[in-house]
């Protein structure tokens, strides 16, 4: 039993038809660590975290969560692992047939079998943490702005205090002040609740605030993985170009007409 690592990915490959997205990803995440994955748009960051949750099945390679191999695991066993995880989707993915507090409380009611009234209380508390007032609780997702939906998705992801949390672009579409509030919240999930988190973001100020370690995905591989302290002098030209946001460098954006 591997106690040091929460998640280990070894030589993970994933292709959609002929399009190779992950081409041998190796990535270890220690318990209680906050990892941030950076990389260009469309490089497979979302695919990577969906593989860890069993939402996508890798073509080959191994992924372990708490030392347990999850590739090829039965649906029922995977459900047990997912009961300990939370996920903020890039597009929020709120249930549009349920109102806001029911969305946030979903995992508590269905998964943890809490009473509706108790779950509602927790949901409203979580909404406060993401800067949403209790009035929002009875609205429906289509009545919210994009940034509000994102925050509801975040509240839903952390509602059951999961051990492993995935945040797919948590601050995209938020104003700078709210972004900072969310960064603090993510940080506190790791430092106060002891969760392990894997965050995807393009926002370098979030990276510096949230991350313990940073991994950069490029052309289907992790080309750099190190402490956030070392990111500015990584000695890796790809990382340098990315964090400084330069158009010229070794990474050539594929622009198709």
């Amino acid at each position, binding site marked *: 039993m591997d106690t040091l690592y929460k998640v280990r990915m070894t030589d993970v490959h994933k292709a959609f038809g002929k399009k190779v997205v992950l081409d041998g990803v190796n990535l270890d995440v220690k318990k209680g660590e906050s990892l941030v994955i950076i990389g260009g748009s469309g490089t497979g960051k979302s695919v990577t975290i*969906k593989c860890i*949750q*069993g*939402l996508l099945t890798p073509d080959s390679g191994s992924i372990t969560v708490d030392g347990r191999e999850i590739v090829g695991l039965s*649906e029922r066993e995977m*459900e*047990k692992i*997912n*009961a300990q*995880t*939370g*996920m903020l*989707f890039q*597009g929020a*993915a*709120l*249930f*549009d*047939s349920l109102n806001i507090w029911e969305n946030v409380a*979903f*995992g508590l009611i*269905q*998964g943890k079998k809490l009473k509706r009234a108790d779950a509602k209380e927790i949901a409203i508390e979580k909404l406060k943490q993401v800067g949403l007032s209790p009035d929002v609780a009875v609205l429906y997702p289509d009545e919210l702005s994009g940034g509000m939906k994102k925050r509801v998705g975040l509240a*839903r992801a952390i509602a059951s205090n999961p051990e492993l949390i995935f945040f797919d672009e948590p601050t995209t579409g938020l104003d700078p002040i709210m972004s900072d509030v969310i960064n603090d919240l993510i940080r506190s999930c790791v430092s106060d609740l002891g969760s392990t988190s894997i965050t995807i973001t393009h926002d370098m100020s979030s990276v510096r605030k949230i991350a313990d370690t940073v991994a950069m995905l490029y052309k289907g591989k992790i080309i750099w993985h190190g402490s956030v302290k070392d990111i500015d002098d990584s000695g890796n030209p790809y990382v340098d170009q990315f964090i400084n946001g330069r158009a010229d460098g070794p990474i050539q954006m594929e622009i198709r007409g």
Partner: protein
Amino acid sequence: MNIFAPVGRVFIAFLESTGRLARFTLKTVSHCFRPPFYFRALAGQMIEIGFYSLPVVALTTMFSGMVIALQSYSGLSTLSSEGVVASVVELTITRELGPVMAALMVAGRVGAAMAAELGTMRVTEQIDALTTLSTNPFKYLIVPRVLAGVLMLPVLVLIGDIIGIYGGWLICVYKLDFNGTNFLRNVWNFMQAIDIYSGMTKAAVFGFIVTLLGCYNGYHSRGGAEGVGAATTNAVVASSILILISNYWLTELFFAK
């Protein structure tokens, strides 16, 4: 270029989708018997299918009964008598038109709505979100819909039978100047138990077909709004065809000597 290649490709694609549908069906059925059960969702779907489909089913079976009464009188005028008209109405409505009409209406209303709803949930990642909240989408979304279809279509058909016969009665009494009491007595005397239970069995099978195909097409839809539209069309077309084909075989099963 080899001319067999495209033919083979179509054939393989056909086998692939048949296999996928078969697997989906087995999975749905097996989840019907394994807890947890979502009774709230089941009740909601039963109301949606059973109650809200009543007006369209009532209207279509009523006019079917009316047209059969009229046609069997004028079309069979040399042999027609009050007894013949009543028995033709009873027989066609309970054995064939009641179940088929109700199922086609439910396919257009409910099957399409299921495909659209699940399709939207798929493309907006709501189905993935369910999984991450440790709720099995088959148990939460698909089983309640399919069970509700199997349970409620027979009820709808029973009501449709009564309304269809009433439609025939209306024409006999107000247009053909028959005696209303005689009509009802003829219907009652002519009716056999098999008319009713074959119709109910057909209804349950059709309910399964409509809801299963609605869910299947929605669950596997791809590619945004267009994909959801295609899923909806496929659900209605495929279930309508399957209803008519299986109706023939069920009639053969029950009545062929």
